[in-house]
C-alpha cells in the first residue's frame, strides 16, 4: 500500500472560526496526506477540540473549504463518514449497556465493520472478562478503553482522536501509539490532540494553533 503514501487525503483551506466573539483561527490551511500522523497543539481554549469537531463534520459553524480526497466534503459526505473514525471528549459509551452491547451498536451504525471481532477487540484493550458487566461498574479508564476498542474494529482511513489517552495507563498508551503507527504505515491518517509526551514523537507532524492564529 506504499504507493498512496504521499496522496493528500484531507485538505483544509482558509478555515475561519469564531466562538463567543473570539476568533479561534483565521486563514488556517493545511493538508493531511495518507500515512501521516498530525498532532494538533495549542493552549487550553485555543480551539483544538473545535477544529477536530469541524474536521469530523460535527460542527458547521465555520467558514472555509474542506476537501476529502480532492472533492468538496459536502459532496462526498457519505463516503467520508464511512472512512472516518471519531473519538471525542465523550467516549460514546452507554453506561447501562455492557462493553459488548456498546460495540455491537457501534458496528450496527457502521456497516463496514465486522461484528465477529468484537470479543477480539475487547481482549486487545484488556477488557476480556468484562464483556457482560454494565459499563457504569467500570472505571473511567476502562470506559474509555471500551471506546478505544473501536480502533481495532474499524476500517476507517482517517482517525480523528481528541485526547485519546486521557485516563489510560502507560501500557495502554504504548499499545495505542503502536496501533496508530501501524495504521499510518498501512496508509491511513491520524489527526489527534493529546497532552501526553508521545514516544512516537519524531514520526508526528505538529500543527500549533497558537502560532497559526497569529494575531
Amino acid at each position, binding site marked *: 500500500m506504499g504507493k498512496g503514501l504521499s496522496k493528500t487525503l484531507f485538505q483544509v483551506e482558509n478555515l475561519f472560526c469564531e*466562538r*463567543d*466573539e473570539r476568533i479561534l483561527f483565521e486563514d488556517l490551511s493545511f493538508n493531511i496526506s495518507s500515512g501521516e500522523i498530525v498532532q494538533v497543539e495549542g493552549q487550553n481554549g485555543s480551539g483544538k477540540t473545535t477544529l477536530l469537531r469541524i474536521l469530523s463534520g460535527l460542527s458547521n*459553524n465555520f467558514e472555509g473549504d474542506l476537501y476529502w480526497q480532492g472533492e*468538496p466534503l459536502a459532496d462526498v459526505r457519505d463516503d467520508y463518514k464511512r472512512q472516518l473514525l471519531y473519538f471525542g471528549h465523550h467516549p460514546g459509551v452507554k453506561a447501562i449497556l455492557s462493553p459488548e452491547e456498546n460495540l455491537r451498536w457501534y458496528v450496527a451504525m457502521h456497516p463496514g465493520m465486522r461484528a465477529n471481532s468484537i470479543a477480539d477487540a475487547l481482549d486487545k484493550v484488556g477488557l476480556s472478562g468484562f464483556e457482560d458487566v454494565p459499563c457504569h461498574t467500570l472505571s473511567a479508564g476502562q470506559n474509555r478503553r471500551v471506546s478505544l476498542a473501536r480502533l481495532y474494529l474499524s476500517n476507517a482511513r482517517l482517525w480523528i482522536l481528541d485526547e485519546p489517552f486521557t485516563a489510560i495507563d502507560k501500557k495502554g498508551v504504548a499499545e495505542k501509539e503502536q496501533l496508530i503507527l501501524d495504521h499510518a504505515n498501512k496508509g491511513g491518517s491520524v489527526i489527534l490532540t493529546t497532552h501526553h509526551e508521545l514516544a512516537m514523537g519524531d514520526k508526528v507532524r505538529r500543527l500549533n494553533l497558537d502560532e497559526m492564529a497569529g494575531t
Partner: protein
Amino acid sequence: MSENKKWMPRWFYQLASPRWSYEIMGKLLPGFAVAATLLLIGGIIWALAFAPEDYQQGNSFRIIYIHVPSAILAQSCYMLMAVAGAIGLIWKMKVADMVAKSCAPIGASIAILALATGAIWGKPTWGSWWVWDARLTSMLILLFLYLGVIALHSAIESEATAAQSSAVLALVGLVNIPIIKYSVDWWNTLHQPATFTLTERPAMPAEMWVPLLIMVIGFYCFFAVSLMMRTRNEILHRERRSSWVRELIEKR
C-alpha cells in the same frame, strides 16, 4: 463557486453581504416611512370619519380597520420569518438569519395587537371580552408559535445555533399553521354553530373596503419600516468588529 449556485441572480448574493444590505435598507427606509405615515393617517381618517356605519354594529365595527390589517400582517410576518430562516439555513446567509430574528418580536406584537383589538371588538358585539371564536383562537395559537420561536432563540447562547434552531422551529410551525387553522375552524363549527363574524360577510360596500385596503397596505409599509430598522440594528450589532461598522461609528 459550485455548480448549483450559478443560477441564482446576482442581487441574491449581494444580499448576503451585511454591508450591502445595511446600505440598501438605509436607502429604502425613508420611502417606506413616508408611505406608511401617509397611508396610515389617511386611512385612519377615512375609516373613522368618512366610512359608513355598519347597519348592525354601528360605529363599533370600525375597529376592524386595525384588527383585520394586524391579523393579516401577523400571518404574513410568520411566513416571512420561516422563509428567511430557511434561506439562512440552506445558504448560510447571515442577513437572512438577522431578518428572521427581527421578524419574531414584531410579529408577536402585531399578533397581540390583533388579539387586543379582537377582544375590544368582542365586548360590544358578543357582550364579553373573550370569545373562543375560530379567528381569535387561531391568532392566539399563532402568538404561541411566535413566543416559542422567541423563547428558543433567547435560550441558545450561540448566535448561529440559535438562528438555525429557530429557523427549523419556524418551518415546522409554518407546515402546521394550515393544519391548526383547519382544525380550529372545524372545532369552532362544532361548538359554536351560529357565530357571527363581520369580516366573513360577502358584500362589503366599496366605501368600507377601500379604506380597509389602504390600512392593510399602510400596515405592510409600517412593518417594512420597523423590520428594516431592526435588521439594520442587528447588522450593526453583529458586525460591530468589522472595519466598515467602525468607520461608520467614527464618522458620527
